[in-house]
């Protein structure tokens, strides 16, 4: 998989021959091409969908980096070095977003022309607020690793369910629901992080 999107044909910067948009290397002279402005999903040859196989994504990431990482261009011309760095930067950025369920949800919303959640600092969902308060209280009071484990196990299950629900909402094009669930995922992710820190404090004592 050494290409990621098929669109307009343009001249290769090196051999001046035709290159299809999204091609990583020129078919004729094999020169590395600029990363172009394509969305993160297309960069990995994926459909714009929330569900994805993270292990498969990682394999693609490694495979693409094997070809594009600047270390492969140490003997090349400065122009090729620059392009490889730009490719690797774009690949890192896309991978960081897509592998993370929360960032992926936010990004997919914005790619689809909806409002993302990254600038949303207030939560208006009263049910979510109540749940967050209660769980946080329980965590504060937890004095044993077992209690924290129970809380983090629940949070982990909740995260898994939430991710599944987000995927479903996106599949059914219920974007408001997806957005609401993504905000819940944001809270759950934070909670999971807090249980991890709390557990670390208890374990290390």
């Amino acid at each position, binding site marked *: 998989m050494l*290409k990621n999107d098929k669109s307009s*044909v343009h*001249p290769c910067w*090196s051999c001046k021959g035709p290159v299809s948009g999204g091609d990583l290397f020129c078919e004729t002279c*094999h020169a590395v091409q600029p990363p172009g402005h394509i969305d993160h999903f297309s960069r990995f040859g994926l459909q714009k969908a929330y569900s994805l196989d993270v292990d498969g994504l990682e394999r693609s990431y490694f495979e693409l980096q094997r070809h594009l990482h600047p*270390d492969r261009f*140490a003997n*090349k011309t400065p122009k090729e070095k620059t392009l490889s760095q730009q490719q690797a*930067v774009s690949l890192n950025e896309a991978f960081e977003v897509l592998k993370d369920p929360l960032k992926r949800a936010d990004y997919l919303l914005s790619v689809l022309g909806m409002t993302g959640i990254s600038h949303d600092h207030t939560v208006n969902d009263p049910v979510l607020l109540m749940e967050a308060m209660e769980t946080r209280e329980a965590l504060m009071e937890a004095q044993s690793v077992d209690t924290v484990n129970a809380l983090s196990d629940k949070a982990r299950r909740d995260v898994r369910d939430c991710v599944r629900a987000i995927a479903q909402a996106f599949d059914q094009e219920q974007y408001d629901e997806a957005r609401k669930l993504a905000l819940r995922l944001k809270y759950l992710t934070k909670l999971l992080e807090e249980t*991890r820190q709390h557990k670390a404090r208890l374990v290390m004592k």
Partner: protein
Amino acid sequence: MIETVLLQIHEPGETPLPHAGDSDLAVGIDLGTTNSVVAVSNDETPEVLRDENGSGLVPSVVAYAPDGSAIVGQLAKQLLLMRPETVISSVKRLMGRGLQDVKSISGTLPFEVIEGEGMVRLKVSGKELTPVEISADILRALKERSEDQLKQKVEKAVITVPAYFDDAARTATKDAAKLAGLQVLRLVNEPTAAALAYGLDKEAEGLYAVYDLGGGTFDISLLRMEKGVFQVKSTGGDASLGGDDFDHAILEYFLTERRAKFGEEKLTTDDVKIALVTGRMAKECLTENDSGDFVLEFNGQSSKHTITREKFDELAAPLVDRTIDICRNVLEDGDTFPDEVKGIVLVGGSTRVPLVRKRVGDFFGQPPLSDINPDEVVAVGAALQAEALTVGSDNLLLDVTPLSLGIETMGGIVEKVIPRNTPIPVAKAQEFTTYQDGQSAMAIHVLQGEREMVDQNRSLARFILKGIPPMTAGAARIRVTFSVDADGLLTVGAEEVTTGVSQEVAVKPSYGLSDEEMAHMLRDSMVHAKEDMEVRLLTEARVEAKRVMEAVYSALHIDGKLLNEDERAHINVVLNKLDETIASDDRHTINAMVEELDRETQVFAQRRMDKGIEEALTGVNVAKLESAIES
């Protein structure tokens, strides 16, 4: 004639560089605080370059003779006891640092520092030298060792740096290499280099921690190793914590005993240098023995001191605890618990200290791996990477930024632009606006670190954006892009978004050398600086010419039928001329011929584009591309 040219088609990447000779060889260098090591790898078989006694370690000690020449290594180390005023050791601790940083490293300094702004300067043998120049002397000695043993010129190297080195220290290292006449193919983080050497050697797979305690720096990295991929998950450390601090702790203990006997004493920098050697001897002695006796002698008074392993453990404990705290943070950053780590690789001479091994083992719940030479593994990894970069390799090193990168905002608060542990290379853009009508310039202060306030982080540089087009306040939108390359080095670019005018970025590194200083040092250090520059430009011109030729060959191979015989013959004539020109030593002629080839192939390029677009419209191209990808 025509046919012979067409037969010269190579697969890209398989073509040797034009007129590449032996100078293409690259070595791996571990530029350490205490010792440095140089290694070379052939066919993935790395070899440490040793002296006649079989030692691969070159002490990172430099003595300056009265004529100004530098003596590096074992001899300089011996001179340290006889002529301390001429000798500098542990200079790595000062890389990319200012006077205030140096003063806060430790109580009793073995350096005579000169007051001033920016990068610290040292006084030695009556000369004023920067850490960059002193490091360059060490690198020069390593370069000579390589050239003597490999019997060829060595001009390229992979140099390792502590993962926790900030941008200033990395830049300083690269500058030192430049002064020494070495082209740095890549700066590789020490724990990553160690993991590369260890992983390839032991075929290790899974999650590994590399605990690297050197002479002056501490690093801990959490890596995933899998089928030739070495992916750093998180990294942390302390750029001023290392074996030297153990020496200092022992010395302070001895000095306290002395004060009880002789009262307050005034020690010169030279006294400290010698006393620290005693401190180091004591530390090394206690690795094997339960106690040892040592003598300190200055101001005509000698004192005898006994130290037990137990006492040393007590002195070292706070330092070792600091490393364990950092391990904890790195595991947390990597979302990992100690028992999920498959193995702990120890790197650096200071991991020989028994207390270090014990504490590390306790923390991870398993004994650390010690079946590798902690002094040489980093250089071996660097050599493997040097070979990978010059010859090629399937292995992949994916590293991260060790420290968050931010900018100063209102009220002296740091706004993070690139958080720590972000995979590199990375680029992030941030938009700024003007706050005055017609404002044409803007200052940006870049910092590195995890704290919230500006003065708690390290200042990297101040940038001044100039040439902002005149607009009302708040109307200009200046997009500043911060890029960190695979070496972990930062570059900044800026552009006014509404007009597309790119902005001039003037850099004032906080602790680095300015371009003028660097140019001056290069002039001083290299008699042939100008010629070297010419050689570099010539090589670049040849590489570029070769690329253009290959591109045209490839195009002819695939689309040659778009030309009639005359046109084709015409292009071949120019190709032949360029091929002949490449052999010449005149880069101007080479560049001119490249331009001519470009002109001569313009019609050809146009026809190829027309054909490509036509094919895309008829859909032929898609099927052809798919099959090309499959193969």
